[in-house]
């Protein structure tokens, strides 16, 4: 609808691009982990969008953190089994 706001996907893309030099300097193995962080954030695009936060990167970080916490939870459950 002739929207003037960037979509959440565009925002995530932009934040990721902003770290291109950071990423470039990482070792290849770490680069893949880095990519995984953003892939994790993208699982919560809808929530990031709904948050409508002034500083979107904070919400992106929160989404990454959320996925990590979920991962830890999952691993803990596996240890318990």
């Amino acid at each position, binding site marked *: 609808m002739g*929207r003037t706001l960037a979509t959440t996907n565009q925002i995530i893309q932009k934040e990721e691009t902003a770290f291109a030099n950071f990423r470039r300097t990482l070792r290849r193995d770490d680069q*893949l*982990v880095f*990519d*995984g962080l953003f*892939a994790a954030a993208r*699982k919560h695009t809808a929530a990031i969008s*709904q948050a409508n936060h002034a500083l979107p990167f904070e919400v992106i970080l929160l989404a990454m953190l959320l*996925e990590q916490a979920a991962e830890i939870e*999952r691993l803990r459950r596996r240890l318990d089994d």
Partner: protein
Amino acid sequence: MIDLVGWLLDVYDAPGGVMAWLLTEAGERVQLFHAFPVTFYAAGPAARLRRLWRYLQTHPLQPRLERTERTDLFAGPLDVMTIEAAGPAEQRRLFRHVAARFPDLDYYDADIPLPLRYAARTGAFSLARCRASTGTTGEIAAIVDISPLDSPWDLYPVDPPLRVLAMTPDTNPAHQPPAHVIVTGRQGPIRIALEPVKLLLIQIQALLRQYDPDLLLTRWGDTWLLPHLLAAAYRDKAGFFNLNRDPARRPLRRKANSYFTYGQVVYRGQQVHLFGRWHIDQANAMMYNDYGLEGVLEQARVTSLPVQEIARKSPGAGITAMQMLTALRRGVLVPYQKQQTEQFKTSLDLIHADRGGLVYQPLIGLHHDVAEIDFTSMYPSVMARFNISPESVCVESERAAVVPELGMIIDQTSEGLVPATLKPLLAKRIALKQELVGLHPRDCRYRRLKARTTALKWLLVVCFGYLGYKNARFGRIEGHEAVTAYGREVLLWAKEAAEDLGYTVLHMYVDGLWIKHPDGTAANLEAVMTEIHARTGLPIALEGIYRWIAFLPSLLDPRVPVPNRYFGVFLDGSFKVRGIETRRHDTPPFIAQTQMRLLECLAQAGPDQPPENQLPGAVALLRQCLTDLYAGRVELNDLLVTHRVSRLPGEFRARSPAARALDQLAAAGKELRPGQYARFLYTRGDPGVYAWDLPAPPDIRLVDVARYGELLLRAAAHLLQPFIDETALRRWVLGEPFQPTLPFPMVARQPHSSPDLLSPPPGTDGRDAVRHRL
């Protein structure tokens, strides 16, 4: 005075009034005249209105003038000048003169289609069963009074006994000059040679006289056949030749155009409209392939637009007509607008991709026992439920509702124009859909009912876009925002309701949600649906329960979910597929069909068996298809790539295969306009494509079999992704021994099972991943 009862087939203007055609219950087609003065309004500074008054007093058309107060939708009561002309044709002429001389004034009700005025004043809508009292003055009987006997909202109206005559050239004239016309009436097809012309015209005229069809149903009738016949009749001075039922009129012709709508360019060829009978060109009718004649008639009834118009127009014109009709009936002024040539910017697809609706990220992978619940016509329902209308949003009142997220207010004191228009339409669609649920797909009524609900669905789909379209007469962008805000809120209410009842929400997509319950999805479904309905107040329906459904990841990164790439098999064995090759229009039929056959193969797994048991069968099928391809056993037709032209030949920036195919066609003298389709084959060597409609047939040996093989493997890999990764699939197909390992980590049955978060994406080596990221 004679009373006639029959169906209103057509109304169009005649000097001093309208000409109406009635198909009577006795089976007669009666032409009737109806004296019908038409009014429009002018508003502006008093001095200018006085000058207009003086000008009109001496105008040869002698309009009746009056000062009145009418209601503007936004501004409320308004002093206006009433200008009444003797008939619709006179009104149009008068308005042209006035608007040219007084362009600074505001005009209302100036360009309303005649059938809407007629329906608003007499109640006689398009295809209504009417009772007409007629008297005879001249050659043509005149209507004294007319009133409808049914309503557009009747679920099962008595259909008029229409006579249809089909007429089509023997080939597509855009590709090859036809030699014959095939005319099909009740007695089967008749082939008539195009030459000699005289004989052709005489034969067609004789058939028209013999059958006297109400509907001339053609293919390429707008773009080729009728213009060809009319030109031939003109050259041959065949004065006897007239396709109309009204002998006093000549057919009306409209020019071709390309326009941008629903995210793509559509080409609409020139049109030929008839008087007293209808002409529909199936190849030029916007949505004909979607819902056929049944749907066209349904839309004509509910919109009051004539059959010939609505068959060729977009549903947007239909919804605008309905809003105008509501305005006319309420006595609200309809602002004048010049014919819009600007683009409208919305589309069903765009709505869904837009952040306007809530688009969730599904849990990637294969899930069993999943229910899909959809809100029925969500956005129109939201408008009706929350009274969202251009004149109700942002209006302070004692009874105002506050829109979630936005804080915008919506006046609730009186029903808005848009909700009032939509409510009966929504109710009719839901009622027909419920009838449909009770019918077996093989039932003879099913197809017709389905066509009618589809036709209504399209009207509802576009009404949302028209609320936010700045050029729409009853549009307002805030209304649009309010609708999407409520849409998101409502979906979250639904999610909360489902989760409260122990369901896991796998996915949400604008107006639908996919849920499952660890102890059996079906058991509590009714409770969930009741709860969602109670919390939202909107109609919902169960799309179905999937035996299994696979949500696919992004093509670029298998760890990232995308909202609209999935496929699944319902309990009854039918499929739903979104976002993969078989759904794309440019996919060669061979590849689309093979992908569907692979899906059928997977679906053959019994209700209690995992679909991955079918993998050996799927691989065998894939091998067979590849063998057929390499052995040249696939029809060239099935290898065609179809491309919708989006620009003029000189406008292409990249030399894509489609652009090269267009160049070939242009070199052969076939220029395609935006919105038309180009078809081509991939060939070996340069230029790599061969356009299908070139005069010389393609050389079979040149077909780029390897490229098609690669496309096929990729399409298969996308479909089988939840069960086997692409490298393993390729190895298996090529005959290397396959070690059945646990399928790649897509079998996700638990939320938050994402073992791949910190590992490289499977199926790619590190280098690939880097390239995709940077």
